[in-house]
């Protein structure tokens, strides 16, 4: 009988979910709020309010990262459109100073390439630009620059390369970009009766499941002759939880993260931020040479670093409640059996492993928490690709390390 219980649970769970999915079939997809790490990308690309990634080679070439504010200014961390567009630059009297920060050696090539696509035939503007370079940056793309912002997608080039009349082209492009973004206002919630019933059912399910588990645990504890005194405290003090119980706690944490902060959990980006901060502190010029530390992992205290501090404290709290909190060197019995008790081995191999881990996380765009779990919960394909890669190479490395003992 006891063996059949999981099957019953699986069947009930699948039936419930199938039912739930039919209840929700007519529900409209709601637009995500324009508030993430980059609200530009969320509104323009993800929601498709005014996609620009494919408009012009300069956009395509820079679409791989959140580089919007580098050229266009504005605020990438504000949800409100008007606030986010404050100080927005859509046309340039001179080439954005930021171009130079990355393209130190190939600025000229890049300009020629983009100018070619804009059909700027004469290179006088470039030559002029080079003269003014030291003070003003490159004064070019005058009059042509608005074309890449123009929502209509047509390259409306003004004649005459160098002398622009900004008033002429600014208004239409601004107006069109505004209308493009304003066409889809956020949807108001629609509470259909089906949704209310589903919500009540879910509540009953969660409460019922919870109380069943509590009741069952008490029953088992009594059957074993253990007095169930203050059950919750007893659980918290326990050193090893069932991985399912800990997983449920993490799942709830993930939901709370979206609910309270509209973000996702992640650890590797916080590490990169800390590194960037330290690097800018130690060697600011060297750090600014790196595109990654200048534009992507920007220095300074941020949300991810606060999360890491919380994780440190959480680990501390977990060890403290189970009475294992103390400063110690490696004491893992499996490690000692395989590699021996020498401390330096643990430190050297741990260090090498950590270097590899952070590089891998950087390439993949997140670590086990930031990509595998935070992506998996949205059913993002990236998460499953990452997990597949992680297990494939992990098994290989374990085979090499353990050899005959595998």
């Amino acid at each position: 009988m006891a063996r059949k219980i999981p099957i019953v649970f699986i069947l009930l769970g699948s039936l419930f979910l199938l039912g739930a999915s039919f209840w929700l079939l007519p529900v409209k997809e709601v637009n995500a709020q324009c508030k993430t790490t980059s609200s530009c990308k969320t509104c323009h690309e993800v929601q498709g309010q005014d996609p620009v990634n494919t408009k012009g080679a300069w956009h395509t070439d820079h679409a791989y990262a959140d580089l919007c504010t580098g050229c266009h200014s504005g605020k990438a961390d504000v949800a409100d459109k008007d606030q986010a567009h404050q100080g927005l630059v859509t046309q340039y009297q001179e080439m954005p100073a930021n171009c130079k920060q990355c393209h130190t050696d190939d600025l000229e090539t890049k300009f020629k390439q983009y100018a070619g696509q804009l059909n700027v035939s004469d290179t006088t503007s470039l030559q002029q630009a080079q003269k003014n370079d030291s003070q003003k940056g490159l004064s070019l793309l005058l009059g042509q620059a608005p074309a890449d912002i123009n929502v209509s997608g047509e390259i409306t080039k003004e004649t005459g390369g160098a002398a622009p009349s900004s008033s002429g082209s600014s208004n239409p492009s601004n107006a069109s970009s505004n209308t493009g973004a304003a066409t889809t206002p956020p949807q108001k919630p629609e509470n259909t009766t089906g949704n209310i019933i589903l919500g009540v059912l879910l509540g009953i399910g969660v409460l019922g499941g919870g109380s069943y588990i509590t009741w069952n645990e008490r029953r088992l504890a009594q059957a074993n002759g253990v007095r169930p005194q203050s059950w919750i405290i007893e659980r918290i003090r326990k050193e090893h939880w069932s991985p399912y119980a800990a997983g449920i706690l993490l799942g709830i944490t993930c939901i709370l993260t979206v609910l309270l902060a509209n973000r996702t959990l992640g650890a590797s980006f916080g590490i990169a931020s800390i590194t960037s901060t330290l690097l800018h502190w130690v060697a600011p010029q060297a750090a600014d040479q790196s595109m990654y530390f200048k534009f992507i992992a920007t220095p300074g205290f941020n949300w991810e670093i606060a999360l890491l501090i919380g994780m440190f404290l959480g680990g501390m709290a977990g060890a403290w409640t189970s009475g294992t909190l103390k400063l110690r060197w490696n004491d893992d019995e499996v490690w000692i059996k395989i590699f021996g008790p020498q401390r330096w081995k643990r430190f050297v191999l741990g260090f090498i492993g950590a270097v590899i881990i952070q590089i891998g996380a950087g390439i993949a765009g997140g670590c086990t928490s930031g990509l595998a779990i935070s992506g998996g919960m949205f059913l993002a394909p990236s998460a499953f690709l990452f997990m597949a890669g992680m297990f494939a190479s992990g098994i290989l490395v374990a085979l090499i390390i353990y050899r005959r003992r595998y």
Partner: protein
Amino acid sequence: MTGYLVAIFLGILFGFALNKGGLTRYKNIVGVYRFTNLTVIKFMLTAICVAAIGLYVMRGLNVIQFPAAPATYLLGNLLGGLIFGAGMALAGYCPGTVAAGAGEGKLDYLISGGLGLMTGAVIFGFSYREFMPAILKVANLGNVTLPDLLNVNPLLLVGVFVVMCLILFYFLENGLKRRDRVE
């Protein structure tokens, strides 16, 4: 400021779950690659199932709206995963468990893990421009999710995923583990 307090609160829950789930131990991490100890799979998939149900149902009820999902660029995700897994099997931790394990007082996590991760970040940061833009351009689908890609009702897909996980859990508890090898 409130944002940072929320972050610390969420971090505490996260670190607590990692600690209690046993994810801050070398043997549990490496065990999953040897099929002797499948804690990591159980922990991760349970978290993903719970969070996926909660998030998609809550979005269906208009309670929440999604932040951008992690970006999908096929080559980078897979390549990064391959590199990441090698490091994880060697060291027995990942960036999250380094933070939680350091909090427990494990000096190998704090010193070798912390320094190693930061060194890795420096190497990645300074070589970023050489190879990352190229990798990011290969099959970059953006911040998509499977329901968007397949154009099906998301809850149906969540249901299928959860049922698959439950079946996997059932087999994990009933004999999929290698019993011929003790840790």
